């Protein structure tokens, strides 16, 4: 293990990896601060750029961008009260009031430092869980992996905004879309309608770009007004005061980091929920709960550390089981497959050094982001006032080039546009898009595990103890969701109910 940790570090600090990491960090700052594109869409747009790269430099670019995106999203939460990223919503609650009190610099300092601690904590959790996961992973085979994939999909579907029915339906649509193309077992074209382009299947990049990015671009296009307005320039002094505040509250930082990393592991919960759970925990345990919502530094610290810690946790099921817990992790899983890596036992044995290099990439990109963020806080703060309308031509060009570059095929632009329409309709009528995306990414893996299970055990695999256990868990999940939906009719009374639709 120690050798692998060293090998992982050696791969993460090669000149090429560091260059990619730096580029990723810079892109992450822009994406996190500017309106228009989220982390998942930008991950998808960057995938074609990584073709031909070795896995570690490729992930330095992708993960470096993604990790920083969440940290940078806190800037707009604090300066304008508008979350730059969905995972930065809790930061608004206290970060923005602090800005209004003339303490924007202090809030940004606390946010950056707590994010750094959170990200490193999450990465260490990922590293610490590898020895635990390895024997577990080596002891299970295709039937259990199939069942685990199904469980992950059920989690996402059950926690989707709207209803579990909508989540399941959208997940099934996603899996069906994944089946388009030549059948891997018999070579039969499935759902291709005699269209040669569909023989290769529908790629993840055009789908993500259209499904998630299209709705975001349309929102940017149609936003009323010309972007966020700041009545007075934010006071950006006192960054070090915020940093000191964070370390004075080190125990809170560690606790909320643990919440972020822990909930990050569970598919479907991720950053959207963990930030509010941690925020609620910080409020409950604070000596000054009355300050929460009015500019509490503890609220800022809790939100910052949780948001950053979730990424390490979210990588655990993605790497070990091939079960992504969120849209971003689904895209990252797609990147694993495109770069020739097979999430699952292989990542914990033959590719252990690559897995550990991901831990180092998270740590390094966070440190670089914190240093850059602290040094460039004033110019970065100015980016937050860029009007969304100015970015529309750039965003549309990026979506188009991203979709086209996936296979250098014009047909993928049509695929992107089709999913843009689906994404907008889904957003307009409150149908969840994430289960569709996860279904698409997991569909191929699920069918592979299903066919291997069938080849090895015919239908007997359905009664294997591990599979039965997961079947019970799926049943319990559906039952609990039904109870949750029934209870949701009552007014929310607890902080834990703040989350609303989760995905």
């Amino acid at each position, binding site marked *: 293990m120690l050798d692998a940790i060293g090998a992982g570090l050696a791969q993460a600090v090669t000149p090429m990896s560091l260059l990619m990491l730096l580029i990723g960090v810079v892109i992450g700052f822009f994406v996190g601060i500017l309106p228009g594109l989220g982390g998942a869409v930008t991950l998808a747009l960057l995938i*074609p750029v990584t073709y031909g790269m070795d896995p570690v430099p490729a992930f330095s670019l992708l993960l470096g961008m993604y990790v920083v995106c969440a940290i940078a999203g806190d800037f707009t939460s604090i300066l304008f009260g508008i979350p730059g990223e*969905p995972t930065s*919503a809790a930061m*608004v*609650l206290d970060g923005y009031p602090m800005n209004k009190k003339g303490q924007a610099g202090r809030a940004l300092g606390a946010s950056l430092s707590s994010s750094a601690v959170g990200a490193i904590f999450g990465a260490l959790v990922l590293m610490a869980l590898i020895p635990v996961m390895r024997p577990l992973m080596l002891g299970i085979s295709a039937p259990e992996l199939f069942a685990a994939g199904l469980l992950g999909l059920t989690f996402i579907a059950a926690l989707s*905004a*709207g209803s579990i*029915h*909508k989540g*399941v*339906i959208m997940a*099934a*649509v996603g899996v*069906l879309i994944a*089946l388009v193309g030549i*059948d891997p*077992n018999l070579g*039969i074209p*499935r759902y291709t309608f005699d269209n040669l382009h569909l023989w290769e299947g529908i790629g993840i990049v055009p789908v993500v770009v259209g499904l998630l990015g299209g709705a975001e671009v349309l*929102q940017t*296009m*149609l936003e009323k007004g*010309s972007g966020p307005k700041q009545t007075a320039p934010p006071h950006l002094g006192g960054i070090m005061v915020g940093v000191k505040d964070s370390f004075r509250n080190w125990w809170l930082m560690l606790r909320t980091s643990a919440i972020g990393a822990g909930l990050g592991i569970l598919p479907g919960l991720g950053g*959207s929920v963990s930030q*509010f759970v941690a925020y609620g925990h910080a409020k409950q345990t604070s000596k000054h709960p009355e300050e929460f*919502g009015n500019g509490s530094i503890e609220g800022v610290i809790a939100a910052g550390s949780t948001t950053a810690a979730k990424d390490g946790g979210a990588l655990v099921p993605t790497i070990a089981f091939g079960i992504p817990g969120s849209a971003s992790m689904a895209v990252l899983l797609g990147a694993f497959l495109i770069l020739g890596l097979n999430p699952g036992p292989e990542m914990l044995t033959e590719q252990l050094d690559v897995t550990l290099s991901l831990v180092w990439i998270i740590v390094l990109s966070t440190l670089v982001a914190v240093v850059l963020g602290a040094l460039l806080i004033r110019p970065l703060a100015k980016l937050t006032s860029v009007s969304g*309308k*100015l970015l*529309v*031509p*750039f965003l*549309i*060009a990026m979506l*188009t*080039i991203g979709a*086209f*570059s996936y296979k250098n095929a*014009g047909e993928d*632009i049509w695929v992107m546009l089709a999913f843009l329409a689906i994404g*907008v309709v889904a*957003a*307009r*009528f*409150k*149908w*969840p898009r994430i289960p569709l995306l996860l279904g698409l990414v997991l*569909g191929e893996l*699920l069918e592979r595990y*299903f*066919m291997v299970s*069938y080849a090895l055990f015919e239908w007997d695999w359905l009664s294997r103890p591990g599979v039965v256990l997961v079947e019970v868990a799926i049943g319990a999940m559906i039952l609990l969701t039904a109870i949750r939906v029934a209870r*949701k009719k009552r007014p*929310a*009374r607890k902080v834990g*109910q*703040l*989350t*609303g*639709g989760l*995905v």
Partner: protein
Amino acid sequence: MSTEVISAIRAAPGRWARVNKSDLIITALLLVVFLAAMTMATEWKPLAAYFPLGVSALGAAASATFLVRVLFFPRSAEAPKTNIPEEARSMADQEYEFFRSLTTRDWIVAVAWLGGFYVALAVAGIYVAMAVFTVAYLKLQASRSWFFAIVYAALLAGITFLIFSTLLKLPLPGGLLGLT
């Protein structure tokens, strides 16, 4: 006619008003898609058909049960009141509210701009489409000066050429005229 049936008929108009029409249409469409997928899968050899059959059957069952729920057990259109602060509501809720607030004119404007860009792309390729769209959009929608719009368009096209065509050597869509 029994009193139960009479009261059910009386309740029907109220219930129909509460039926979420968009959910009804989307679910019915998806049910048709799943049934079509199932029918197609039955024509394949078993090994190629098992998994698609299972997935489409699951999707059809979920759609059918949801259709029943939407039609016969409609819920109040109003979401229950919660203590969720405006700025901390989920992104799904915020997107839903945003798109719901759009007028027909907003939709026409958005589709026209997007449609214009992609028609230009299909005909003249990415660079011409990007330049024309950028200048027109910034001038007409963002109320920027001609100078700003032209410089922005030139920079965007130049950076795209530098990164994608020169550094990454990726081919870009050239349209019918092949202008890349």
